[in-house]
């Protein structure tokens, strides 16, 4: 076996967290040691993941960098491996985490050391989710991620933190319990929990429907889909900035990733059968949450609702089962990862200065925060899917793919694009433009070096991939082809059987 690079990426943050734990916990907020260790760990992890991408072979759809250790022999194997679909999520995770670490240095005022530990541990769990090729291991990471997030909301959150933390926890946990039962059932049906083997064995059709629904309940909550999305706005509003960023950028993507890897991969026939359900829920999500977003008076809630709408595009895209749709939804997840992260950071910048998330507090801040306003504008444009930003590529591909399958769904989803322009530009207008009337705002300073460079970096990425998404498309191409081919084979085989 070669050097276990996936395990290193996964567990490096955990080791970092251990060292942070060892640092002397002084009463002051100025825990330099913990900060340096976290920054160092997350950056090293990011570079390792870039190296991983560099050495990744885009020509094959097989799982690469495989690692296998028997954990409970004959039952659970500790199996890691990635393909074109998962690698980009790993890079997204290792990219977003250092950003969160840097951003929380300024904004987290209490128990910074514990906060950093929570973020690092969370990174381990998130990467683990995207690397695991064993259902039980996947489930462990998937669920374990709840704990640090629960703590982040519950300890460092706002006024209604306890309510939101519990809502978040219970919602996601309830969905996942069904998935656990399904995983056990799969073990009894196939005799293994190894995903690659299950792909080969093929689960009998009669079991697929129930199992699909069990997995669906978990992923739909995580993504979130309408109508189980109501935990998201609350969680976002109460979570500290770094928490919101991770939540929006990565945790939501686990749902989409799960649909692709497990629902479509393991239960193709059920996936086809339930496509109308997914389409219906998704277009409701797109229109409904866009309308709700329009009327929000809290910036974070608005962005949270817009996330639900964007995730609606993702689910529509996945269940088109064609190249444009699935590649589009992958790109959409990545772009939403960057853009929503950037938007939450933007809100965080304002919140740190005025301690208000309400839109009506603001107005005319372009006069005091000119640099911030430009960056915010780019992110707003990304949200509404302007061509030339990253947001456009995914959205457009999804719609192209959907149009081939179901014209009506594509048209309704396109209306969501108009609404997106309405809510985000209206938000921008009310916050950034207009007369500067609030005296409190007149004294605030523009973005500092660390905030500015983070936002600028994200802004450049969003524009760069808007004009040149090819590196990403190239990475996912073969794996998506393979996924679609397997799906089509199963469907035709099933038709032939009938």
């Amino acid at each position, binding site marked *: 076996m070669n050097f276990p690079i996936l395990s290193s990426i996964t567990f490096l943050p955990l080791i970092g967290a251990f060292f942070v734990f060892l640092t002397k916990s002084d009463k002051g907020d100025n825990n330099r040691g913990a900060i340096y260790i976290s920054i160092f760990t997350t950056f090293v992890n990011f570079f390792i993941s870039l190296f991983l991408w560099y050495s990744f072979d885009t020509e094959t759809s097989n799982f690469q960098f495989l690692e296998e250790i028997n954990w409970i022999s004959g039952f659970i194997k500790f199996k890691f491996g990635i393909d074109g679909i998962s690698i980009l999520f790993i890079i997204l995770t290792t990219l977003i985490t250092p950003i969160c670490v840097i951003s929380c240095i300024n904004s987290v005022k209490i128990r910074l050391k514990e906060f950093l530990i929570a973020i690092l541990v969370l990174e381990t769990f998130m990467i683990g989710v995207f690397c695991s090729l064993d259902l039980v291991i996947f489930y462990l990471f998937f669920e374990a991620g709840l704990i640090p997030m629960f703590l982040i909301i519950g300890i460092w959150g706002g006024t209604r933190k306890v309510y939101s933390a519990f809502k978040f926890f219970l919602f996601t946990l309830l969905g996942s319990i069904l998935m656990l039962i399904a995983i056990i059932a799969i073990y009894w049906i196939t005799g293994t929990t190894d995903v690659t083997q299950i792909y080969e064995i093929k689960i009998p059709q009669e079991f697929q429907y129930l199992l699909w629904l069990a997995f669906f309940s978990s992923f739909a909550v995580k993504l979130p889909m309408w109508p189980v999305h*109501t935990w998201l706005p609350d969680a976002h509003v109460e979570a500290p900035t770094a928490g919101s960023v991770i939540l929006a950028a990565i945790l939501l993507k686990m749902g989409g990733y799960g649909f692709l890897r497990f629902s479509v991969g393991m239960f193709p026939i059920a996936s086809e059968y339930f496509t109308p359900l997914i389409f219906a829920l998704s277009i409701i999500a797109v229109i409904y949450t866009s*309308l709700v977003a329009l009327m929000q008076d809290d910036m974070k809630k608005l962005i949270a609702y817009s996330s639900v709408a964007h995730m609606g595009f993702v689910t529509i895209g996945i269940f088109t089962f064609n190249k444009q749709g699935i590649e589009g939804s992958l790109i959409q997840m990545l772009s939403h990862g960057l853009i929503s992260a950037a938007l939450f950071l933007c809100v965080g910048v304002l919140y740190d200065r005025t301690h208000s998330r309400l839109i009506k507090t603001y107005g005319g801040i372009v006069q005091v925060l000119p640099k911030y306003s430009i960056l915010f504008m780019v992110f707003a444009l990304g949200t509404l899917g*302007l061509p030339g930003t990253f947001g456009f590529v995914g959205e457009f591909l999804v719609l192209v793919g959907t149009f081939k399958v179901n014209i009506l769904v594509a048209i309704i989803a396109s209306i969501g694009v108009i609404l997106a322009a309405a809510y985000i530009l209206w938000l921008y207008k009310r916050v950034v433009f207009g007369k500067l009337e609030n005296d409190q705002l007149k004294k605030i300073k523009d973005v500092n070096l660390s905030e500015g460079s983070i936002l600028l970096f994200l802004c450049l990425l969003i524009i760069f991939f808007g004009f040149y998404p090819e590196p990403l*498309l190239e990475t996912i191409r073969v794996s998506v082809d393979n996924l679609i081919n397997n799906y089509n084979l199963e469907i035709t085989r099933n038709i032939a059987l009938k």
Partner: protein
Amino acid sequence: MEYAALFLPLIGSILGYLIKNLGDLASQLVTTLCVLIASIFSIIIFYNGIFNGIYDNYLIYEWIASGNFIVNWSINIDPLSSIMLVVVTFVSALVHIYSIGYMKHDSNIPRFMSYLSLFTFSMLVLVVSDNFLQLFFGWEGVGLCSYLLIGFWYKKDSANKAAIKAFIVNRVGDFGFAIGIFLIFMFFGTVNYAEVFQLIPEFSNKQINFLGFNSNLITLICLFLFIGAMGKSAQFLLHTWLPDAMEGPTPVSALIHAATMVTAGVFLVVRCSPIFEYSQFALNFVAIIGMLTAFFAASVAIVQNDIKRIIAYSTCSQLGYMFFAAGVGAYHVAIFHLFTHAFFKALLFLGSGSVIHSLKDEQDIRKMGGLWKQMPFTWISMIIGTLALTGFPFLSGYFSKDAIIEFAYLRGTGIGYFSAGVGIITAFLTAIYSWRLIFRTFHGKFNNENLSKSEIHDSGLIIIIPLIILALGSIFSGFVFKDFLIGSKYNNFWNDSILILQTFDLSKLPVWLITITPFLVIISIPISFYFYVKNTKLLEKIKNKYIFIHKFLLNKWYFDEIYDSIFVKPTKILGSFLWKSGDVKTIDRLGPDGISKIIKIISNKSTKFQSGYIYDYAFIMLLALSLLLTFFIFYK
């Protein structure tokens, strides 16, 4: 050179903003020079095309490749794009120069210049595209720049509102456009113009089931593309954003909302002539919408009082002309009118900007009057612009607008005759409102109470020079380019860039048709002079008698009010309703909050069982025992 013409404005835009710390002059110089050089290159490209036939397609790189959905960034130089290159860069360069003078006292000059250049770049990307998606990029890009520039004075609430309105109404159009692109890709498997156009004849009779309706594929594609064009070119039903867009600085109105961006819709229809030619229904639809817009906007323009809004409605109306030219299949005439219109409309806007500038931002023509002596240069250039716009003989508008009416007549169909008729009436209305503007502004009594007449003087040289150049263009562009664009040489010029299946027989023109419009245009001068200068009381009387019509026109046929109550308010109400009643009261109450409440109730009840009193436990044991006994006795 083609690359330079395209990318220089972008470089200028970025550089112009980055060097803002070196002073306003630096960014003004950089941006203006870049666009100026780009315009020289464009003229060379155009010249090479006309005389040497040099046309080519330059591939820049692959943008998106997903399955068979492959889109490139490219520069496609053909007759149509080369003439658009010239219009865009030339007007843009003049507007850049003009802005140096016009925006002198603004505090955000680098930002303004940078936006202008960025707009120019987006417009060029749109024009030189060889596929629908790059066109869409430019399309939304110009929409963005328009949004940014309308809202340039961000402290004004009305400007911000107008900016958002412009963007969202355009988005509605873009929604149609996008669906057009989806349809094209779905059936042709490509979004490249050349490949799509080649396949069109094979599909010309294909019927598809679209949302339950059985319809012709080509017609559907055309209609959806045209919805996009309607949004961008402010055509009837989607026109409401254009008059509001006048909140932006005047150079912006000249460049974006008169000469270039709003003509993108016309460009789209002409570019897609190989598709539109195969759908008579779509062509008729284009012609009817164009005709309606031309008439509607002209009727509204007659009673407006804001100098820029009058010209905005006039633009709307002229765009209507271009569309009905395209709708009767005279694409080359549409582009010819687009070409001449760019000169005289930019001239009118810049001229009115000069007036507004001198009157310290006064835009109401009721507060002007008698200015001609104070600002002779502006006066003369406005007169030239008006003559050209109304189609006074031998100025540019005469050649292009009359040609539209003539070609509509020559088409020989009912729609064609009807369009020609509406065109003639509208031409008369155009002349009336244009002269009304001139007479109210420059003649009669001076009506401004805030300024004394001696304070007013003509604008500086940097504002006057672009006016003179545009005035020359307004005079000569029709005469010089007539032969190339619509005259005897038009087939040589246009090559394959436009497709006209049914050609026109120019010899069949009746004399009365050729003479009627110029005649109406000329007599309109004394008529409007009489009404607006000599005998204004008569006009008041007429106005009071038909107050209903006047109000109807003044309120722009009540479109804004109708849209507000049909779309804007219900959307907001629905949004609140879904949030408050949907999320909070239904999902949360039945979902998490409800469940937690139930669990609380159950646990409260169950804690009561554990009271700690012996007799409670004893009672329950007895009860259970008796129940069990009963069960065993009766069922076993």
